[in-house]
């Protein structure tokens, strides 16, 4: 029997799986892989099996468990291991989630559309003003999610620039720059939370102070922890999905033409983008807190478990021509936002940002094209969010 193949592997194209994933998918839906630190982990690559394991009561998110898999060096940090919601199991997870649900429900998020449209129009104006070649990473993909989450949380307007700059550095800086910027954001959130507790304003943080801090349900540290996780989760994933989605459309001109023929196809096209691009590669890192039987395999208590969104989204058992990008696909089901109780809290906000941004960009600049071949775009992100560092376009 051959050794467990390495996972994750680095993509060479921003939206296509690495070459080595084909063989991993063929050995699925459940197999063992070797992590970067030499440890072994189970990985689930089947779509049906992903849904099954992500709703299994013995699957745990406790990142402090010694068996918890570390998929990239940056996940070793104390901050990464103690994230609110993401690193929690029920019952605490469910309590926090219920505090936040009304502020991220589809119904609530829909009310944010006019504001997001206005923000996006401003960014597209700036792109037009800059003229070709314009970099859509710095002019759109990074500032959009930053500004939207700032406004939602209730970050004072005068601090937006610091916020955008620091979050840009967390994402795109060197290792040291990134760590310094992350610490500056934590320090900032500590101070902002103290201000909000003293004098709550209209945003989500002020609302949580009134609804949960003043009632004694949570304290300062918990609110800082929630603010941090909302910030981290909102940024990188949305930013990268937007950039990779634009590239995917530009690289599939027949599909882009179908979209431009009828822009009402955009919500369905976004589901197909989410399926095809699988921005996070891994949709779950977990540890088994009890035995799990799945697809004829016996996962033991303490074993590490990963779920591959990249492979589950392209499972040929559920999708015809799974490797084809097809915006008219009838059921572009995917696990890009996860499944089960941890499914992405911000999924509807992410969808809305993608929709508003792509609609404005492609309707105002219908001749949009890449200013460099996709093979020359610098990419990053093995084991984390798949990113392009630069996206120069012309029109």
């Amino acid at each position: 029997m051959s050794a467990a193949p390495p996972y994750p592997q680095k993509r060479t194209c921003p939206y296509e799986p690495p070459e080595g994933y084909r063989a991993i998918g063929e050995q699925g839906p459940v197999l063992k892989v070797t992590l970067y630190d030499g440890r072994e982990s189970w990985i689930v690559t089947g779509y049906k099996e992903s849904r099954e394991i992500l709703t299994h009561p013995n699957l745990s998110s406790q990142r402090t468990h010694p068996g918890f898999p570390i998929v990239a060096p940056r996940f070793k940090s104390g901050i990464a291991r103690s994230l609110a919601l993401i690193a929690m199991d029920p019952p605490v997870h469910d309590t926090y989630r219920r505090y936040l649900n009304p502020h991220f429900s589809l119904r609530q998020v829909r009310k944010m559309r006019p504001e997001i449209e206005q923000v996006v129009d401003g960014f597209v104006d700036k792109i037009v003003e800059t003229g070709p070649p314009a970099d859509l990473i710095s002019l759109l993909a990074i500032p959009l999610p930053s500004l939207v989450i700032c406004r939602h949380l209730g970050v004072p307007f005068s601090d937006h620039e610091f916020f955008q700059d620091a979050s840009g550095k967390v994402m795109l800086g060197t290792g040291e720059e990134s760590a310094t910027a992350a610490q500056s954001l934590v320090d900032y959130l500590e101070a902002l939370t103290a201000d909000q507790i003293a004098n709550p304003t209209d945003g989500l943080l002020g609302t949580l102070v009134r609804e949960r801090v003043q009632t004694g349900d949570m304290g300062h540290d918990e609110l800082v922890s929630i603010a941090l996780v909302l910030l981290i989760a909102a940024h990188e994933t949305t930013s990268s999905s937007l950039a990779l989605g634009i590239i995917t459309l530009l690289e599939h001109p027949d599909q882009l033409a179908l979209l431009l023929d009828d822009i009402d196809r955009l919500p369905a096209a976004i589901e197909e983008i989410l399926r095809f691009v699988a921005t996070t590669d891994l949709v779950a890192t977990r540890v088994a807190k009890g035995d799990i039987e799945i697809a004829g395999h016996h996962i033991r208590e303490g074993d590490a478990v990963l779920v591959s969104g990249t492979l589950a989204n392209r499972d040929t058992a559920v999708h015809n021509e799974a490797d084809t990008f097809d915006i008219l696909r009838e059921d572009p089901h995917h696990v890009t936002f996860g499944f089960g109780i941890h499914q992405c809290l911000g999924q509807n906000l992410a969808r809305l940002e993608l929709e508003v941004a792509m609609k404005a960009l492609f309707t105002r600049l219908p001749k949009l094209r890449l200013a460099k071949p996709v093979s020359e775009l610098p990419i990053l992100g093995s084991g984390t969010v798949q990113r392009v560092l630069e996206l120069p376009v012309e029109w």
Partner: protein
Amino acid sequence: MTLHVAVDRDVCISAGRCLATAPDVFDQDDEEGLALVVRQPTGDEEKLVRKAEYLCPAAAIHLSN
């Protein structure tokens, strides 16, 4: 026989897939953001409601005949 739909608000996580899929049948309340059934589906809506049940990440939608 038409389909009867119920939502288990104790397990709902406000993902909104039901409302996005079958907007005439499901909604979310403002207070908790949780799913609710606006009205029972017509025969034509059965397929959409089954899809909503499939997409619900929390298995909160219960269908019966």
